């Protein structure tokens, strides 16, 4: 055995499995079953970190989730994780950890100078000091940020795996201590499906650190028996190392299970963490309690520890945290620390009791061992800086100060129930005078707190609580309770009450008395904040930052609130604690993301021709979940050069595009005609079979929602196309109207987007190309019509229409035949010099023609009239949004209206989104605010027009043709001329040449 503070025997560590680890570069040893904290203490390492603000030396305070000081950086590289509580980190072979918030080293930390300056750094220091001059704030902020912060975030992507699990149960029990095990047993014996979640590496809760007995045998033997029984039941699931961290509506709870620590090797392929999403019919919260620290000058020195932690390190890990111990207490419970440590052979210097008397059975046992007990004391300070050397105490009545030499101070001011999960679920809390803490007020409909989590002090009470709650929960799930709690008989003598008011006995002494260790908040800070008017718990919290560290004030909040009540000279019952919100313990991004990272982050939709596009070097863009070819650059070609080439092919020859991603909705039924008329603001019912029409869909408020072509396939049969991104929402919108407003319409809608693929053939030579391949007379097809045909033998719907404003066809075929047809068409087109064009060219081509694009020219606040469509509205029929179009605001003449915009310089392409002004302004510093009268919605360089073109929305634009406006771009005004929103004449030539 090499650890100097490891006891010869005892504890629940596996002494047959020694482990090597490193802390701040030092090689140390421990055992399997140790936490990093217990292993460090076994090696005599108390100084483990520096505090956040004053860089004071800090040691291990607690033993679990409450730990505010022992935060370490674990592992290296991409797996490194900051702010890990050493008290929860299970030791593994090769673990590397380092202390945080110190430079150059833990022992010599220059940041510690802040401690010397601390009297000039009270609460609100940053708010008060760095306000002036305001222009220096960026400098201050950089300096403060360098000083502040705890660990370092990893710089590379997390290489570990994480996963998610959904689970359902009748009864979720949170915590596998005495009360939780009793609840799980009682519920399970009634036949309930039970999940028992516990954050420790093994069940037992506080019992793991005690030497209690249950029913005449060791409490841990009872725990083993209970666990064996639970594990044997098929409907019980036990989750160790699982912290339930969020409690939401309707019995929904989130927990995080840890399988491997940061940097721990993975020999068997388990994830590092698993996020549990649990839906529980009933929840029993047996989350235990956290010991409350005492408040006295320099109570943060390394070697000052919570009393339970001190005996639990001894009982559970076989570690003596000191060799000469003083126990300081305001309750009887801490006397157990003196008894347990003395039984392990540790020297106890004295027990210092703040209460005026100490006469219960525990003080009697301590005295009987010959240990000195001082009563009616107050602690005036300690000696020692990097490690406590002596405790200084005097009678609360005054008098001589006695200095007791020691290397460990074990302190207790009673216990704080862990009500976080109860409060998260909106459970109310009330102040308990006897315990001096907030406890749950009753229970919620499906949630109850048991044991220490509801302030039950005794083991017997915790067991009874648990058994009862487990049975009630099972019964509430319709299961018969048939278990009596007969095997829990344990007798405990009464303990003398806590004196929680006494814990501030030293508060008048001054000095640095910490209430929030992690955020360095002192008694003086709280009092100053109250004097300055921050006397509500919420304000106090934010002003002093008490409770805002990663420990969320688990040890400190209650003392902060008690001080607040004292400073306000009011009773604690007038204080409402700040609301607990999820998460109880921080979740890693990895756990939240689970397996949904990289290619699994979102589904990818590909058209049947995707591989062809990829093979031709297409550059893809994401449109919703679809991958669409944006352009097909030749070797070394820029985006603009490729787009120019593709656009000119469409205008001069023939080009082919994949338009399969546009939404297609098949609408059928006896009332299909009426339905189609109501969803478009243009007339559709007049459409003959085989004819197509462009239409706009409006929301009830009159704003454009989506657009597309409707084709009439039969008397009662339409095909509605939508934008790529709007397909799902248009379909859902149709279903909504049919189900909720028009249930009388006999219409059936089916999304057929993926059933068909659609190919656009565009350009003056498209007819020449397609004609020989089809079994119909294309020449006879009018513009905006549809015919069923076979194209190169493939059954197809041939549409004579285009989104380019020039001649063209679109061919829809079953998705499974699309690749074949595409390659056939491309092969047949080679003698015409066919090329493929992408979405970028489509955008330019439609803008040349003045076709709008939903999402560019519309933004949810644009009406058909704003785009110049008023003449095509069918106001003599009902349609969605019709009445709104008559609202006075939508009839204003100065609404923004679609126009074309041309710059003076033909090669100047305006940025989309640029604001338009009536007057040029010299500089952004111009004194007067400038009215923005519109903005650029689409802007491209058009190779066909041999110049830049843009569309925009301009206030009263219909009356401003020919006017000069100014686009504000990068700090200067660019002159633009307003034109009609169309750049081609009837012959397809540039109209303003």
């Amino acid at each position, binding site marked *: 055995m090499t650890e100097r503070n490891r006891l010869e025997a005892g504890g629940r560590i596996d002494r047959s499995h020694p482990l090597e680890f490193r802390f701040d570069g030092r090689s140390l040893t421990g055992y399997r079953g140790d936490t990093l904290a217990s292993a460090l203490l076994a090696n005599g390492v108390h100084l483990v970190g520096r505090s956040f603000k004053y860089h004071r030396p800090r040691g291990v305070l607690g033993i679990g989730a409450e730990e505010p000081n022992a935060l370490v950086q674990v592992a290296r590289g991409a797996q490194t994780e900051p702010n890990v509580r050493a008290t929860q980190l299970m030791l593994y072979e090769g673990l590397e950890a380092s202390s945080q918030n110190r430079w150059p080293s833990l022992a010599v930390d220059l940041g510690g100078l802040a401690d010397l300056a601390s009297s000039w750094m009270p609460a609100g220091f940053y708010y008060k000091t760095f306000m002036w001059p305001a222009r220096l704030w960026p400098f201050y902020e950089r300096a403060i940020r360098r000083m502040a912060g705890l660990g370092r975030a990893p710089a590379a992507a997390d290489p570990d795996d994480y996963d998610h699990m959904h689970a359902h149960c009748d009864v979720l029990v949170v915590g596998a201590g005495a009360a939780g095990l009793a609840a799980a047993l009682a519920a399970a014996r009634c036949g309930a499906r039970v999940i028992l979640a516990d954050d420790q590496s093994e069940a037992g809760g506080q019992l793991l650190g005690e030497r209690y007995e249950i029913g005449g045998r060791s409490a841990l033997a009872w725990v083993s028996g209970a666990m064996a029984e639970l594990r044997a039941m098929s409907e019980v699931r036990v989750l160790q190392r699982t912290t339930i961290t969020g409690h939401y509506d309707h019995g929904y709870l989130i927990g995080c299970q840890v399988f491997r620590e940061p940097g721990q090797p993975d020999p068997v392929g388990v994830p590092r963490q698993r996020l549990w999403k649990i839906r529980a019919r009933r929840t029993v919260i047996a989350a235990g309690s956290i010991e409350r620290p005492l408040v006295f000058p320099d109570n943060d020195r390394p070697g000052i520890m919570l009393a339970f932690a001190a005996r639990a390190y001894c009982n559970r890990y076989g570690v003596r945290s000191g060799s000469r111990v003083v126990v300081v207490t305001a309750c009887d419970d801490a006397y157990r620390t003196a008894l347990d440590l003395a039984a392990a052979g540790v020297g106890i210097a004295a027990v210092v009791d703040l209460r005026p008397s100490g006469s219960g059975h525990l003080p009697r046992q301590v005295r009987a061992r010959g240990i000195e007990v001082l009563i009616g004391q107050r602690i005036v300070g300690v000696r020692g800086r990097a490690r406590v050397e002596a405790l200084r105490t005097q009678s609360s009545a005054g008098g001589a100060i006695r200095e007791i030499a020691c290397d460990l101070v074990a302190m207790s001011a009673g216990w704080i129930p862990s009500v976080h999960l109860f409060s998260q679920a909106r459970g109310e809390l009330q102040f308990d005078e006897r315990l001096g803490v907030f406890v749950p007020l009753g229970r919620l409909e499906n949630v109850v707190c048991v044991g220490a989590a509801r302030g039950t002090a005794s083991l017997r009470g915790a067991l009874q609580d648990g058994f009862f709650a487990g049975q009630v929960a099972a019964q509430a799930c319709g299961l018969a309770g048939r278990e009596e709690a007969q095997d829990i008989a344990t007798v405990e003598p009464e303990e003398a009450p806590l004196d929680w008011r006494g814990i501030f006995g030293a508060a008048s002494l001054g000095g640095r008395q910490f209430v929030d260790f992690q955020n360095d908040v002192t008694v003086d800070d709280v009092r100053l904040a109250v004097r300055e008017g921050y006397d509500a718990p919420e304000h106090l919290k934010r002003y002093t930052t008490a409770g805002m560290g990663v420990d969320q004030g688990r040890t400190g909040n209650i003392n902060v609130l008690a001080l607040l009540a004292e400073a306000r000279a009011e009773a604690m019952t007038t204080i409402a604690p700040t609301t607990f919100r999820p998460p109880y313990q921080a979740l890693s991004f990895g756990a939240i993301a689970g397996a949904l990272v990289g290619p699994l982050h979102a589904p990818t939709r590909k058209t049947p021709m995707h591989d062809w596009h990829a093979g031709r070097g297409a550059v893809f863009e994401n449109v919703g979940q679809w991958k669409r070819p944006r352009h097909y650059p030749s070797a070394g070609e820029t985006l603009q050069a490729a787009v120019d080439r593709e656009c000119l092919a469409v205008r001069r020859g023939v080009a082919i595009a994949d338009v399969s991603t546009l939404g297609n909705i098949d609408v059928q039924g006896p009332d299909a005609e009426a339905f189609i008329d109501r969803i478009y603001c243009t007339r559709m019912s007049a459409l003959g079979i085989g004819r197509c029409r462009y239409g706009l869909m409006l929301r009830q408020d009159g704003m454009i929602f989506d657009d597309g072509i409707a084709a009439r396939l039969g008397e009662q049969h339409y095909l509605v196309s939508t934008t790529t991104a709007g397909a799902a929402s248009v379909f859902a919108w149709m279903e909504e109207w049919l189900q909720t407003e028009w249930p009388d319409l006999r219409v059936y809608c089916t999304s057929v987007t993926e059933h068909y693929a659609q190919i656009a053939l565009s350009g003056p030579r498209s007819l020449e190309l397609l004609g020989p391949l089809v079994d119909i007379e294309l020449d006879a097809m009018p513009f905006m019509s549809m015919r069923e045909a076979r194209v190169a033998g493939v059954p197809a719907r041939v549409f004579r229409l285009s989104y380019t404003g020039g001649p063209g066809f679109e061919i829809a075929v079953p998705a499974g035949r699309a690749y074949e047809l595409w390659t056939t068409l491309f092969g047949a087109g080679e003698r015409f010099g066919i090329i493929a064009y992408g979405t970028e060219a489509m955008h330019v081509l439609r803008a040349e023609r003045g076709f709008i694009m939903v999402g560019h020219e519309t933004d949810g606040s644009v009406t058909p009239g704003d785009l110049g469509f008023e003449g095509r509205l069918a106001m003599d029929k009902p349609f969605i949004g019709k009445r709104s179009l008559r*609202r006075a605001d939508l009839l204003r003449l100065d609404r923004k209206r679609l126009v074309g915009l041309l710059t003076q310089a033909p090669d100047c392409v305006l940025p989309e989104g640029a604001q338009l002004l009536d007057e040029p302004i010299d500089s952004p510093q111009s004194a007067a605010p400038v009215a923005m009268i519109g903005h650029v919605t689409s802007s491209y360089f058009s190779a066909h027009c041999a110049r830049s073109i843009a569309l925009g929305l301009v206030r009263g634009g219909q009356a401003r043709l020919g006017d000069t406006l100014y686009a504000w771009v990068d700090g200067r005004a660019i002159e633009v001329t307003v034109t009609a929103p169309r750049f081609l004449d009837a012959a397809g030539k540039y109209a303003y040449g």
Partner: protein
Amino acid sequence: MLLIPCPWCGPRDETEFTCGGEAHIVTPRAPEDLDDEAWGEFLYLRTNPKGRCAERWVHTHGCRRWFNVLRDTVTERILTVYEVGARPPQAGDD
């Protein structure tokens, strides 16, 4: 996260549903007869009650059916679900 009892599929997580806002907003039979204020009220004004609230929900990632939910906005309790077009249950019915 709410557990919503879809009348067709049974209880499912809230993430499978989409809320369509307050229920029982009657679309005017003759919108053309309404003045702008009355139409604006129909379009935009909702009661936003504290307590019992009738809402429309659709089981988007399930049966895609719309139905009504009577929910208490304070306790988040779902008191009942009922068909589109049915009258809202009166206080005390649950």
